[in-house]
């Protein structure tokens, strides 16, 4: 089911009467049957947006539509949503079976059918054998799946997940990530999930929505957003290691960093910020490129080598020192101290004005 938000705004008023616009005039359409990741740093309004969709928070302004239905003022229990809380909020005194059954009982589903659905759902999340355990007796990952089962058993129109993986250890996180994607594919329920982990968002979402200060920065397929960020914030937020940002100038259709030419541009002369993804550096074996540095640190992990280069700086203060990272093929056997000439792949280089807005 398609979800549409129109000019959604949520303002929190603190005790000292200061206002925080947690969600600021957000308009967004979430296509039916897709898995959408709401992504951003903490305090960006992503969780607030999710709770507005759930109805646990009420917006100050704006509208929410589920398909043609306006649900802006519908209480949560009438919205037909399933919500998985960050720490699952499983009822600790109920068994897994009772937890999953609970929403069905409230919806007055006929007892036999409810039982059958509960078992079906437990099977979907792979917890059939654990139905009579209490949440305490389950691992974090299993608890999380119970929470998903409880959210899905009433066949909601929308599934909302609040930081679903943040309480899991690294290995379990990868596993559960796949699990969520599988369950979403099988059920085809429009799913919105919130995360601050860009890798997580990029790996399972059909589309990601990047937020900052309550405002949507960009929305699109994960790879599209990564390859074509609309501003410096998005460029920096996606990608690990982070994108390298250089102070640069454009002079006579050429782009310079530290007086070295790194590429061409049709933009007028002036100062710019240049973002180059770590994988955007190619080592020039013929040593012809003018873009060259002495390598300070080399760390090789498997097939990739990360080169760390300190940029020359006028200040002696260690905090002013800037460095950048380049990821190159480990086969090149580069060592610290080597002088390396780099060629920058144009498609991995983005130009921003000093306010961080994308140029071109």
């Amino acid at each position, binding site marked *: 089911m398609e979800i549409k938000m129109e000019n959604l705004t949520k303002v929190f008023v603190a005790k000292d009467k200061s206002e925080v616009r947690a969600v600021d005039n957000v308009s967004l359409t979430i296509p039916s049957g897709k898995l959408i990741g709401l992504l951003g740093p903490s305090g960006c309004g992503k969780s607030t947006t999710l709770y507005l969709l759930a109805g646990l928070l009420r917006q100050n302004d704006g509208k929410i539509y589920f398909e043609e239905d306006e649900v802006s003022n519908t*209480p949560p229990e*009438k919205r037909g*949503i399933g919500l998985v809380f960050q720490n699952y909020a499983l009822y600790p005194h109920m068994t897994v079976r009772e937890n999953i059954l*609970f*929403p069905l009982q409230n919806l007055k589903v006929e007892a036999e059918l409810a039982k059958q659905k509960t078992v079906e759902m437990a099977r979907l999340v792979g917890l059939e054998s654990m139905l009579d355990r209490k949440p305490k007796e389950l691992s974090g990952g299993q608890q999380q799946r119970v929470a998903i089962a409880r959210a899905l058993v009433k066949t909601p129109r929308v599934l909302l997940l609040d930081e679903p993986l943040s309480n899991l250890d690294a290995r379990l996180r990868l596993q559960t990530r796949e699990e969520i994607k599988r369950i979403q594919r099988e059920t085809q329920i429009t799913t919105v999930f919130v995360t601050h982990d860009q890798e997580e968002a990029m790996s399972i979402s059909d589309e990601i929505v990047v937020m900052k200060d309550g405002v949507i920065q960009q929305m699109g397929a994960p790879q599209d957003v990564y390859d074509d960020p609309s501003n410096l914030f998005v460029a920096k937020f996606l990608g690990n290691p982070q994108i390298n940002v250089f102070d640069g100038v454009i002079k006579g259709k050429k782009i310079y960093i530290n007086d070295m030419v790194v590429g061409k541009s049709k933009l007028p002369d002036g100062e710019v910020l240049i973002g180059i993804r770590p994988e955007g550096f190619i080592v020039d074996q013929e040593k012809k490129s003018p873009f060259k540095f002495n390598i300070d640190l080399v760390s090789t992990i498997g097939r990739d080598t990360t080169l760390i280069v300190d940029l020359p700086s006028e200040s002696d203060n260690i905090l002013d020192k800037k460095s950048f990272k380049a990821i190159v093929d480990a086969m090149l056997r580069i060592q610290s101290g080597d002088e390396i000439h780099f060629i920058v792949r144009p498609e991995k280089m983005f130009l921003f004005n000093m306010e961080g807005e994308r140029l071109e």
Partner: protein
Amino acid sequence: MEKRNNLKAWLYLAPLLILMGIFIFYPLINAFYISILEEYRPLAPGGATATGYTLSNFARILNDELFWQAIKNTFVVAFISVPISILISLVIAVSLNSIPKLKALYQTVFFLPYVTNAIAIGMAFAFMFHKDYGLINLMLSWLGIDPVNWVGNVATWWAQMGALLVYTIWGGLAFKILVFTSGLQNIDKQYYDAAKIDSASKWTVFRRITVPLLSPFILYISITSMIGALKAYRTVIGLFGERLGAQQNSMITIVAYVYKYRSAYQDVSAISYAASAAIILFFITVVFSLIQGVVSRKRVHY
């Protein structure tokens, strides 16, 4: 090393243990002892005397109609007042919790009885239950109900018991509400959000979320207030004075029975009767606490 630590631990515990020994363990054991003395005269010239050991003290009070009256009164008070007051205080605590603004004010109001003298309240209640001038009968008259003689000389047993129960329940609310409101604060708000998402009605939330999550507190309150109710005495004195009822001894409780014989300490064996009744009360209390513990094991969620 371990031994020295043990010594230290005993040392730290000593003040409490000594006080408990003097004021709790010794009297308890002494009560057992006195209850089996034959013809005990605590004030005999030249020191207390007894002619031997016997169980006849127990036989004597178990054959005393007044003792069975005390048992009946005590049980009725305990079995009716405890569940009702728990239910009422639970409802009040939950309602208090859902009105954040006036919560502090109401909490104070509900806690006032706890810090007010029971005898004073008893007198106020006695007046409220007065046949001709009392507030209760006035309110009943609004509903077209004839005035009831609650605490007067010719009041029926149930009328007196009714008044006593109302007073007992009301007097016990404050502490229960306090415990339950603090218990409610320990429940994660997220369960309520989850229940909302799960389309639970308010009643379902209360029955299936609040009560189970509050169950350790409910168990604590039900055990302590059961013990308290079995020891009922102050309420009877407060409401009826030393006659212990509208008619002489009609509302007597086990503790009041104990006190009656204890006051008659000059009489032969009177103290032994008091001790025997106290011992019987002790075992009744132990049995009920154990039963509650066992019954609740299945239902209490920690």
